């Protein structure tokens, strides 16, 4: 199949996702969860010890009052520990009253604290440094194994393509649907980074192999051949991952819903980019090089 003939179409398709995503990222940023921003902790004590087991009811009750609850945990007999997005002293009395109505007992306030973030700025900064460093090493390794800098550079470009697809989509989701990025999103992002390169290298390996077997063939034809040959494998492999993720996304508990969705977006983008971004990039790069040398 002459898949590379439509390379600009593939770039256009990427752009259709990337441009709005990046625009939203610059304009609105990401909606950060309490993991990044910090929040409040409220601990309440009831005389009826059984109340601490009714975490779900308590959570729903407080959410009805329009407060964003992160978690409700039992902390002692009759005692509950509630974690919130930042709330004020007045909010606490509203919540206590609401709970008092339901359980017919005014809870005693054990403590109310404002807490800092779990994910500090330093962790994020250092993780970004690590990603850039990893990208550099991967680029060097791929360039060395494939004996051409072009392969290394294009593999990394495809990796950043997937990164920005994920960031962009979640920025849009955050702006329009209030979806937040949290610790899990960071994990999902790191998973996709390695998946993306992994998938790209498989496609590149075919090009390398054909280059050895047909040293005189036209580069575009080689890429076409490699992409056609690896496409079933790429799709099959991603299918197994996508099955898993769709199941977790649709059927799993709410706490991993967006995590699964982030991974799903990343997997689809990663599969697409290895065939329809990383390979055409090689063709374009190769074309530039040729024009320069003639």
């Amino acid at each position, binding site marked *: 199949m002459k898949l590379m003939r439509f390379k600009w179409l593939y770039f256009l398709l990427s752009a259709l996702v990337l441009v709005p995503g990046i625009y939203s990222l610059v304009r609105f940023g990401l909606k950060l969860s309490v993991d990044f921003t910090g929040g409040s902790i409220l601990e309440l004590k009831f005389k009826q010890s059984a109340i601490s087991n009714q975490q779900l009811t308590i959570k729903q009750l407080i959410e009805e009052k329009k407060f964003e609850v992160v978690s*409700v945990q039992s902390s002692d007999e009759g005692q509950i520990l509630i974690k919130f997005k930042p709330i004020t002293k007045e909010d606490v009395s509203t919540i206590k009253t609401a709970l008092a109505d339901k359980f017919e007992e005014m809870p005693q306030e054990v403590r109310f604290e404002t807490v800092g*973030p779990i994910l500090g700025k330093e962790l994020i900064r250092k993780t970004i440094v690590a990603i850039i460093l990893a990208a550099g090493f991967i680029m060097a390794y791929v360039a060395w194994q494939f004996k051409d800098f072009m392969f290394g550079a294009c593999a990394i470009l495809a990796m950043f393509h997937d990164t920005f697809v994920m960031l962009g989509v979640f920025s849009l989701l955050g702006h329009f649907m209030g979806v937040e990025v949290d610790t899990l999103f960071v994990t999902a992002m790191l998973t996709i980074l390695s998946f993306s390169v992994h998938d790209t290298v498989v496609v590149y390996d075919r090009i*390398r192999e054909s280059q050895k077997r047909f040293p005189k063939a036209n580069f575009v034809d080689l890429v076409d051949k490699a992409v056609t040959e690896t496409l079933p494998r790429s799709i*099959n492999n991603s299918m197994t991952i996508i*099955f*898993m993720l769709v199941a977790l996304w649709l059927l799993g508990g709410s706490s991993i819903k967006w995590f699964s969705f982030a991974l799903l977006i990343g997997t689809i983008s990663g599969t697409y980019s290895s065939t329809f971004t990383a390979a055409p990039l090689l063709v374009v790069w190769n074309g530039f090089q040729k024009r320069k040398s003639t």
Partner: protein
Amino acid sequence: MGKRNLTFWFIMTVTLLAVYIDLPEKFKIEGSLGKFYFEKEFRQPGIDFKIGNFRIKKDFKIVQGLDLQGGTHLVFEAELKNLSEQDRDQALEAARGNIERRVNFFGISEPVIQTAKVGDSSRIIVELPGVKDINQAIDLIGQTAQLEFWEENPDPKATESGQIFLKTDLTGKDLKRSQVSFDNQTGQPVVSLEFSEDGAKKFAAITTKNVGRLVAIYLDGMPVSAPKVEEPILEGKAVIKGNFDLNQAKKLSIQLNAGALPVPIKIIEQKNIGATLGQESVQKSIQAGIIGLVLVILFMAFYYGKLGILADLALIIYGLITLALYKLIPVTLTLPGLAGFLLTVGMAVDSNILIFERMKEEIRSGKPLSVAMELGFGRAWDSIRDANICTLITAFILFNPLNWSFLNVSGMVRGFALTLILGTILSLFTGIIVSRTLIRIFYK
């Protein structure tokens, strides 16, 4: 043939070992055969035996995270009174960072550590999954661990003035690394120190000046040991000999490695907390995971037939070994961690799919099956190798084994990297060695 069988038996042994470790702590087998009714309760026996003086004891328990099982909630109060208003936030944040490092060196992963404010008081909240060794954890977290070196006062009137020792400029900040080792003569645990370049120079100067005199090592303002300097020490290494037991030496070494707390803290509250996730949410996710797993297995079996079933078998072995490793290391299992593990199952079949697609091509070009199989494995190897090395590069940099300070030395990113490394190496083993052996033996 002999080698092939050997590999097969090796795989079987590893798998059985994994199954043994994977067994739940307690389980019951019930049933009836004809009119016999049997019921037996098994207990995971763990390992407990002695070799010479060493006792090896390990119970295989999966460590569940705060979201699944809850854990211990500790609140520390920081004393910031002596600091100026504008320095307080920074000091609290620095203390938080050090505590996080200590907890992670200690081996408890997936902790939650955050700063908190109530009115005027500044606090640090530490949540640890599980409730093992909590007192030890409190000790570990709570100590400031200010390391100082003091030299003898050369003033002959020192004993009168009471100032026998004078502080030097060498402190814990000049430390590069510390670790537990054992005294050659007594066999007692000691903490050995390695200074940074700067620290080594300072230490050399101090020991040169004080040959024949005492140099005291102070921890949090108390002398721990005061060895006599026999000769100048130029290579920047020292040993603290206190009367430590192994645990104390370990604790001190972790505290020194993580750095001193910039402010003293004291524990004000300690309690057990329940899981953050409801039972329902966990059950739903586990169900979803099982459905996903079954889909993957069915897909492989339908698409690749008998080969697919053998790959599924390799996949199940992958799952069993991974779970066993999670119990052995131990890796703290959280719900997202579980989802991540399921995801690696999807990724672990990748090598098999690569190999099978290659085999199909070779068969299409007219090669007999046995040749096609060997060629398939051979040809797919280059891409499997390069792809997995790239993953390992990312994982190692995120794991930061050399503790470079410009990368993360703690926290969740490191935990993620560890599971990624495990998953990649294991999937190479099951995807290539296990499935190849199975196919050679069973696929004819």
